[in-house]
Each structure stands twice: as structure tokens, then as C-alpha cells.
């Protein structure tokens, strides 16, 4: 029986296990990184919390490098947070516990309203840093009269990416009304090409028909968003608002969707669009970056148009505004000054140039003096045209905090022919009710 050695092995093993890592913790793990390269020239160091993915990091790094060149006495360190719901929770938690880094970027519009800006953020009203921000953007980062952020990135549109080669071959024009859209679809289908690409493996892509139609709703009824927030307007039964749902059903009923719509992802949809097996893909124009990585040689073939409504005269783009950079209230003193300088730099032509150098812009910057470079993708040029013509209005999520969590499931059902449009609209109205009550809105 080898009991004795076993026993002492266990004890010694435990002791070693317990002590060795403690020794390791002492030499803090972060010291391994090369990012801490002793850059302490006596200046101010501020930390910026941004996305952890490659694109977000590369963009922030480009901005920081340009900013540090212009302000040698300030060092900006990057901190990272995940995207999606986890990132949302993290931002709220860190604001709530007073542990937010000196600067952070986050959504504008109704998500911005949910982080209790008046309690948690430092107001920038009248500060030089927000001087160049365009008026189209200011409402998205304001509570009452106070402004809290500067745009970080470019605006984009919700509409339809289309294959211009297919349109040229079939002699089609960009549709300005829904009737034109359906007529064009019929022609495309007759040519053996799937007219409308849908990708329900990524459920969020199914919402575009509803969310991207909001410009048309607002054009027909400018007060709609206000009434919607006050529980006076509903999707179901409203002749204007229900059309987004109805259009989705029409497309399915007419058999205009690609055959494998239920089982493919965003990337597959882009591939079909690029190689011309599909002609039109309702999606966000910002997703041109996906197209860029999948079919860089076909960028010139793909254009963009807004989802058409009934009236060609009010045709315009449903626009999404960029995220913004904010400063939490916990940033004070020299750090606050440095943070404001960073924000001012981001909202300046030099900042836009830094952003452009990191990634191709997908829409306008909403900062005075910022120009898009000449070689942007066709999709971006088409989006810019809507902004230049002022034929754009904000998406509903920028006007109203009411957004139900299950819209994507409902639109998948409608687009798959499982649920009729009117039924889906009514279901979505129920879905938003709980969320509105949680937010404590009046009238719900």
C-alpha cells in the first residue's frame, strides 16, 4: 500500500498550487503588454473605453495617434469592452458604480437616453469641443438644453443595396415608389434572378422593411413618433405605419425572396448580391464593410437606394446617426480638460481625416468642414446624395425610446409567410408595451 507517499504528495501539491499563483499575481499580468511603454512625460493620461473588436480598436488607435501628435502633453490609453448586450450592461454598470474611464463611446439617440445622461455624464453645452457638430446630430446627444457628446463615425442609412449591373442589364431604374419596386421585382424575377435577398439566419436583418420605412411614415405623419412615445399611435391599424410590415408580406407572397432566405447569414446575402444571383438586399448601408471584405472587386457594382413609399415626391432615406463620444461626470480636473480636448479633436476635420484613414467612411460625418474622400464605395456616395439633398430623416429609434425586443422574430415570421402583416404589427404593439412600462413612460 503506497498510502503514505500519496498523502504527502497531496499536501505538498496543494501547498504548491496555493502558493505559486500568488507569486505570479504579484508581478501584475498587465506589465507584460508592450502598450505600457513608459510614456510618462509628466503630461496627463486619460483612458478611453471603446469596442474590443479589431475595427473599433484600429479606428480608435488612428484617432489617438493623430490626437497625440497634435497634443504631445496628453497620453490616451485604450480600454476595451465587448459589443452587444454585454457591452450595454457593462457601460451602465460602470457608470452606476462610478468606475467609467475618462472617455467612452456609446450609441446616440434613445440608447443614449437610457444611460441617464443628466446624472452620469459631464455636459458639454457651449464648450469649444461641440462647436463643429452639425445641428442634425445635436438632438441625438442632448437632454433638454444640454449637449453631452460629439459624433464618432459616420451616419448611415437603412434601405436597399442593389446590383447596378443587374439593373443596367434589365434596363431598370431605381424605384421611387413601392409600386415601382414591385414592378422592378417582377422584371428581375422573370430574368431568373432573385429580386429580394433576405437572410434570416441573422434575424436582425429581417427588420429593415419596417425600420427602414420610417422616413415614409414620418413624411406622411410628422407627429407619429411623438404620438407613438405617448401611446397615442400604434403600428397595427395605422394606415401609414403598418405599410412596412405589409411590404414585407407582399414580397413574400409574390415569391420575390431568394429560395434559401430562411437559412443564410448576412455574409451569404452579400455574396449573392455581389455575384448577381440576387438583385436587391434591404440592409443598413454601413454593412458595405461586409461587402468590402467578401467581394472587394464588386464594390463598384453595388449601389444603394432608400426604401420607397407611396409618394415619389417625399422619397427619402431613413437615417441612422453615428455613435458619440461622451465624458462621464467622474472625470474631473486636468483629465476633464484633456478629455474635452480629445472630443474637440474628434469633432474636427483633423479627427474626420484620422477616422477616414482607419476605415472607409460609410456616410457623412455630421461635422462642419469634414469632406468624404473621392474614392468611397458607390453605396456611400448614394447615401451621401440623400444627405446632400436633405432627403433624409432620423430612424424611429432616434426619436422614440420605445422599441420592443422581439421585432426581429416577428418580422422573420412575416417574411417567412408564417404570420400575416396586420397580425404581426399587432403583436409588435404588445411587445413594446412591456418595454415602455419598464422605462416608465407616461401614458402606458
Amino acid at each position: 500500500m503506497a498510502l503514505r507517499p500519496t498523502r504527502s504528495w497531496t499536501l505538498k501539491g496543494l501547498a504548491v498550487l496555493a502558493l505559486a499563483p500568488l507569486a505570479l499575481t504579484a508581478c501584475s499580468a498587465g506589465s507584460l503588454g508592450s502598450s505600457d511603454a513608459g510614456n510618462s512625460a509628466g503630461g496627463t493620461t486619460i483612458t478611453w473605453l471603446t469596442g474590443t473588436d479589431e475595427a473599433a480598436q484600429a479606428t480608435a488607435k488612428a484617432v489617438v495617434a493623430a490626437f497625440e501628435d497634435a497634443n504631445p502633453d496628453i497620453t490616451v490609453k485604450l480600454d476595451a469592452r465587448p459589443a452587444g448586450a454585454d457591452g450595454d450592461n457593462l457601460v451602465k454598470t460602470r457608470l452606476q458604480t462610478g468606475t467609467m474611464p475618462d472617455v467612452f463611446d456609446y450609441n446616440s439617440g434613445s440608447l443614449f437616453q437610457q444611460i441617464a445622461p443628466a446624472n452620469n455624464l459631464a455636459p458639454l453645452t457651449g464648450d469649444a469641443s461641440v462647436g463643429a457638430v452639425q445641428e442634425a446630430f445635436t438632438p441625438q446627444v442632448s437632454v433638454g438644453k444640454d449637449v453631452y457628446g460629439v459624433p464618432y463615425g459616420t451616419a448611415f442609412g437603412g434601405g436597399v443595396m442593389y446590383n447596378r449591373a443587374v439593373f443596367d442589364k434589365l434596363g431598370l431604374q431605381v424605384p421611387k415608389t413601392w409600386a415601382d419596386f414591385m414592378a422592378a421585382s417582377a422584371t428581375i424575377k422573370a430574368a431568373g434572378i432573385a429580386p429580394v435577398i433576405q437572410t434570416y439566419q441573422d434575424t436582425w436583418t429581417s427588420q429593415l422593411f419596417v425600420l427602414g420605412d420610417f422616413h415614409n411614415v414620418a413624411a406622411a405623419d410628422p407627429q407619429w413618433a411623438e404620438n407613438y412615445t405617448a401611446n397615442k399611435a400604434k403600428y397595427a391599424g395605422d394606415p401609414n405605419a403598418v405599410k412596412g410590415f405589409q411590404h414585407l408580406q407582399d414580397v413574400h407572397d409574390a415569391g420575390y425572396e431568394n429560395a434559401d432566405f430562411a437559412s443564410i447569414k448576412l455574409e451569404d446575402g452579400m455574396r449573392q448580391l455581389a455575384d448577381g444571383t440576387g438583385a436587391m438586399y434591404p440592409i443598413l448601408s454601413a454593412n458595405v464593410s461586409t461587402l468590402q471584405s467578401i467581394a472587394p472587386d464588386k464594390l463598384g457594382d453595388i449601389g444603394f437606394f432608400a426604401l420607397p413609399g407611396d409618394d415619389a415626391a417625399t422619397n427619402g432615406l431613413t437615417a441612422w446617426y453615428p455613435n458619440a463620444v461622451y465624458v462621464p461626470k467622474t472625470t474631473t480636473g486636468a483629465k476633464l480638460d484633456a478629455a474635452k480636448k480629445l472630443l474637440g479633436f474628434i469633432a474636427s476635420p483633423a479627427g474626420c481625416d484620422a477616422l477616414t484613414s482607419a476605415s472607409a467612411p460609410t456616410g457623412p460625418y455630421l461635422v462642419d468642414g469634414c469632406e468624404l474622400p473621392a474614392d468611397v464605395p458607390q453605396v456611400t456616395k448614394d447615401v451621401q446624395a440623400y444627405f446632400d439633398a436633405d432627403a433624409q430623416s432620423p430612424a424611429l429609434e432616434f426619436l422614440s425610446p420605445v422599441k420592443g425586443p422581439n421585432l426581429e422574430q416577428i418580422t422573420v415570421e412575416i417574411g417567412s409567410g408564417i404570420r400575416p402583416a396586420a397580425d404581426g404589427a399587432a403583436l409588435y404593439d404588445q411587445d413594446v408595451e412591456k418595454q415602455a412600462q419598464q422605462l416608465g413612460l407616461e401614458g402606458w
Partner: protein
Amino acid sequence: MSSTVTPPTPSVAGTGPAPVPTTVPPAGRVGGARSALYRYGVGSLAIVVSVVVFLVPFAFILLTAAMDATQASEFRFAWPRNFQLWDNVVQVLQTRDYILVIAFINSVVLTLVSVTALVVLGSMVAFVLQRRVSRWTGLINFLVLTGLIMPPAIVPTIWVLQRFGLFATMPGLILVEIAFGLSFTILLFRAFISTIPKELDEAAVLDGAGPLRLFFRVVLPLLRPVMVTVILVQSVAVFNDFQNPLYFLPGDAGATVQLTLFNFQSQNLSSYNLLFTDILLITIPMLLLYLFFNRQIVAGLTSGAVKG
């Protein structure tokens, strides 16, 4: 738009050892062609099922990790067109100033320290609870169960940590992991200690062993089988934990391996080849743990059997 890409679950492997295909002889029927058929049929079925459940996903990870970005975005089960596993590994390691290396050190430290503390504390508490029944036992049992039932609340926990100056430090996170794992560990140890005959304790006490000696010299060595279980279960739980490191140890210096998965995914663009390479690298330690402890499990079980 609340469009978020759900991450492929990080804990793909390491959630359990491939079930050993058990060949259970049918009760009451020994020998004969039918029983052989039954035996081998069930055996091969178990093998097929475990291959489908465990090896196919792993093969998918491996293949995607070897693809280039374009092919990986197709998200198909296919042979890589350009086999570039090594390039992907290098790229993943280099991402954000070798943060994966830092994350590995952090995760290993976190897992080792918290699991060691869990085993030591859990077994001691369980021993006392099981052997010394007093009027406090009921209350303490209730508190242990409360630890299982109550969902952890993030913000109050952060307040407590802040007050003690432990927020955003590795010791703070280790304490959090210990707190969340302790209840389950105590329950496991208690159940096992109740099967150890009390006479053993009494014999040791009669021979002059004090309480510490009794525990460390007599009881603890007998706990080896359940200790292996606790180590495996808690190591996997702590190593694969995403939420606690995210909230309680913010900052790049404190990144753990699960947090690095988010380096490769975003709303518009996900580098699946790099993501899966990362998953592959993260999976390896837990896989090794299983291979290593496989023998220990068997050894622990047999030594327990001799003493029974």
C-alpha cells in the same frame, strides 16, 4: 438597432469528457448471440453519438480555424482552401499587443487560486458541517443553499468590493469566484463525507490525533475522488467564466481568455477564422486537464473502492 451577434458559446469543449461507451450487459441474460448483438449495438451507438456530439463540433472549430477569412465567412463544414492554421494562430496571438498571452496568464492564475481555495475551504466546511451537528447547523445549511439559489447581483457586489479596495483587482475577482462556487463545492463534499464511516475518525482520535491532524491526515486523503470531481467542475466553470471577469476585473490588464473572443466579432464584421482559432487555443488547456485527470479519476475511484 439592437442587432447583436451572439457569440458562439466559448465553452464548446471542456463541458464534459466524451462519455465512455458503456457496454452494459442486459440484466438476467448472459451469453448468446442476441445479447452479443445487443451489447455491441448499444456500444457502437454510444460511440456514434459521442462522435456526433463531441468530435464533429470540434472538427468544425479546427477546420474553420485553418481557413482564410473569405472562406470562413461562408460558415460551412468544408476543407480549407488555403490551409493557414499557423498564420491564424500567429495573428490571434499578436492581436492587441499579445493580449491573449496576458489573458492566459490571468485565467490560469484565477483558476488555480480560486479552485485551490474552493477545495480547501469547501472540504473543511463540509467536514465540520457533517460531523459536528449543533444548533447552528440548520442555519449554516440554509445559508449554503441560499448561495446556490440567490442570483448574484453585480452592482451591489461592486460596491462591496470598492469599499474593501478590491474592485478591479485579481484578488477581488478570485474572492468573487470563490464565493460563487463555494456552495456547490460544500454540497458535493458533504455528500461524500457522509459516506466515510465515523469509526475512522474515532479511531484516529483515540490514537491521539487532534482536529487538524484528523482532517488533513485521515479525511482529506479519502476525499480524493470527489476532489477530482470538484477540481474538474470548478476549473471549467472558472476558466470559462465570462461575466464575472467582465464586470469585476475591467481593463485590458485583467483580461481573461473568454473576453478575448470579443476581439474578433462585431456587428458588421466577424473574422470567423480568427474567432475559431482563438476558441481552439482557449479549449486546449481544459482538454489537457481532462486528459491528465482521466487517470486520476480512475485511480481515485479504485482507491475509494478498496477502502469501502
